């Protein structure tokens, strides 16, 4: 589904990714781990199309299409979703409006009519229940005045409503207490399916206790230094990143 080959990326003239290669197949969950500054967030932002990231070499295909050639909104409509580490607050833009506009943008792209307003609200309400979110969130501004944990839950809510084919979650677990972590993990697990893939960026293996990955990759200085199954995450937890970083050097 997603094939990344020899990806080099600079941000403001600084090299962040240095020849990253990765393949994610439909149905898989990949965890990207690594020390601060290793390029984890850069990777998912480049995949989502954030401006300011310059791809100097390499290619990325999504279902055989050149992903990097698409505008961010086109990537989203093709089914790529980025769950932000720090979701921005947008006062004045209503949560439910954004959700509806996003769903309709994707439907239009697929040649479908706009979603029925009542069915849509039912859908959103059921997903909110799963995320244990209060209905008052709907009428509030996007992330406006939300706590850190509420923002993360809102990201997962959006993911559940949009049903992307490739979800990139950037440190969605950071700053969550254990209850919130379980709710978020529940949300992710509820969406796992053979047609869908996940790339989870995380610092700690804690999330991976609840969302069990198929593959774990350790990023060091902008490339994958080591890959393995979920036991790699456990080993990292014991031995620390220096273990892999030392090997990579």
């Amino acid at each position: 589904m997603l094939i990344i080959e020899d990806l080099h990326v600079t941000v403001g003239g600084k090299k962040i990714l240095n020849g990253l290669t990765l393949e994610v197949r439909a149905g898989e969950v990949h965890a990207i781990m690594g020390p601060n500054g290793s390029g984890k967030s850069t990777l998912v932002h480049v995949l989502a199309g954030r401006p300011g990231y310059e791809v100097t070499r390499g290619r990325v295909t999504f279902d055989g299409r050149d992903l990097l050639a698409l505008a961010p909104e086109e990537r989203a409509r093709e089914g790529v979703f980025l769950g932000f580490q720090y979701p921005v607050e947008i006062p004045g833009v209503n949560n439910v409006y954004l959700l509806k506009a996003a769903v309709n943008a994707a439907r239009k792209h697929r040649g479908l009519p706009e979603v029925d307003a009542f069915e849509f609200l039912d859908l959103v309400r059921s997903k909110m229940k799963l995320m244990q979110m209060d209905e008052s969130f709907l009428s509030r501004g996007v992330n406006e005045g939300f706590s850190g944990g509420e923002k993360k839950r809102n990201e997962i809510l959006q993911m559940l409503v949009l049903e992307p084919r490739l979800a990139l979650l950037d440190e969605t677990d950071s700053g969550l207490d254990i209850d919130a972590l379980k709710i978020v993990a529940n949300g992710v697990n509820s969406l796992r399916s053979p047609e869908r893939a996940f790339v989870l960026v995380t610092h700690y293996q804690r999330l991976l206790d609840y969302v069990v990955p198929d593959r774990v990759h350790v990023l060091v200085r902008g490339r994958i230094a080591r890959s393995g199954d979920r036991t790699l995450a456990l080993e990292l937890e014991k031995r620390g990143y220096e273990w892999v970083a030392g090997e990579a050097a």
Partner: protein
Amino acid sequence: MTAPLTARIAEEFRAAASRLPAGVVPPQRREELLAVLTREGLPTSRDENWKYANLRALERMRFAPVAPRTEPSLLAADLPAPIQGYARYTFVDGVFAPALSCPLESSSGVTLSVASRSREASERLAAASALPAPADARFAALNEAFALDVARIRARTGAQCPACMELLFVSTGDAESGAAYPRLELDVEPDARLGLIERHVSLGAESSFSAPAVDIVLGRNAAVDHYRVQEMGPKALWIDTLTAGIAHGAAYRLYMVSLGAASARSTIQVRLTGELAEVGLHAVCVADRHQVHDTFALVEHAAPRAKTEQTFRGIAGGRARAAFNGKVIVREGAHGTDSRQSLRGLLAGPEAEIDVRPQLEIYTDDVRCSHGATAGKLDDDMLFYLLSRGLERDTAQRLLKWAFLEDVVAKIAVPELRRQIERSLAGQMNETTALKELL
């Protein structure tokens, strides 16, 4: 530059004097005002507080008022849809048009009279209309000198009329046939409460000149919600003066929406004369193409523990300019003053210009005054967030513009009016539908 202009004003005044009704403004008063104008001249762009308004356009305008039409050719259908629950008074080129009006029920405790003023009301207005310093009443003087008609509203002590009346000022004239001087005097007696809508529209797209003047006096513990919408035609020059005096415990809330005109300038001057008086000035403007929207808002705190809240949200696209100069003066003895200003401009075009300027002059201790002013482009992080959810770039940008205006638009508590304003905003932002309607 102003000398020939004032000479021309005097000349046009002489020629028009015989048709300026004495019941509206007594001839002697008109003469006095003309003398003031001749002495002081009209402002120019060299005046500190008039830098942004397009005053040069005045040179092409006639000052004598448009001759009232003998047969009204307008139909109610030509006008903006009325707001349910509000009586409507329509003025065409500054002259009352009863056929296009739908008067208030007499039981409301509020009266509107056209042109006649009781002596009692005159005295109240005169006593209360001490202008804030340094007030600028030159265009108000022009208005009063030339006014053909006036809407005088009096809310009697204790009258409760929260959804009261709409004053619709329609300009049909063009610059060659003369100017329009919409005029409104509002006298709100103690404990009265009033909701007022004031709209300025043009029919037709010819160049025109209007200089509205609004004079407001709020008695003790009175409350007024005043919604003002400026939707003049694309070639209109609109120079407006609003003056208000607010007594003890009274609350005046002004919501201004400025969309139309080639050049629109509002001079708003509020004096808080009594303890615990409150004023809220909430303004939104969307300017595009070559439009200039300029507001100067002066609030003078002349009594203790009074409160000011000022919010401005302006968007300038194309080569337009949106300016808001908000000045607050806290006089000696006005301790406990609470003043907040939030002025924000959004640049939506590479050649657009935003000028927001909060100014504070404080002559007493123990005050709480805060101000914030920003001018900038759409937030890149917000934009990327919306794009990453699949929204079209254009939709995302429009959504963020709405969100930017929302701080003021959401305060418009008359749902029907707000919907109409949202539709107008949509038009001004080149949209076919108001995004808010999709919610």
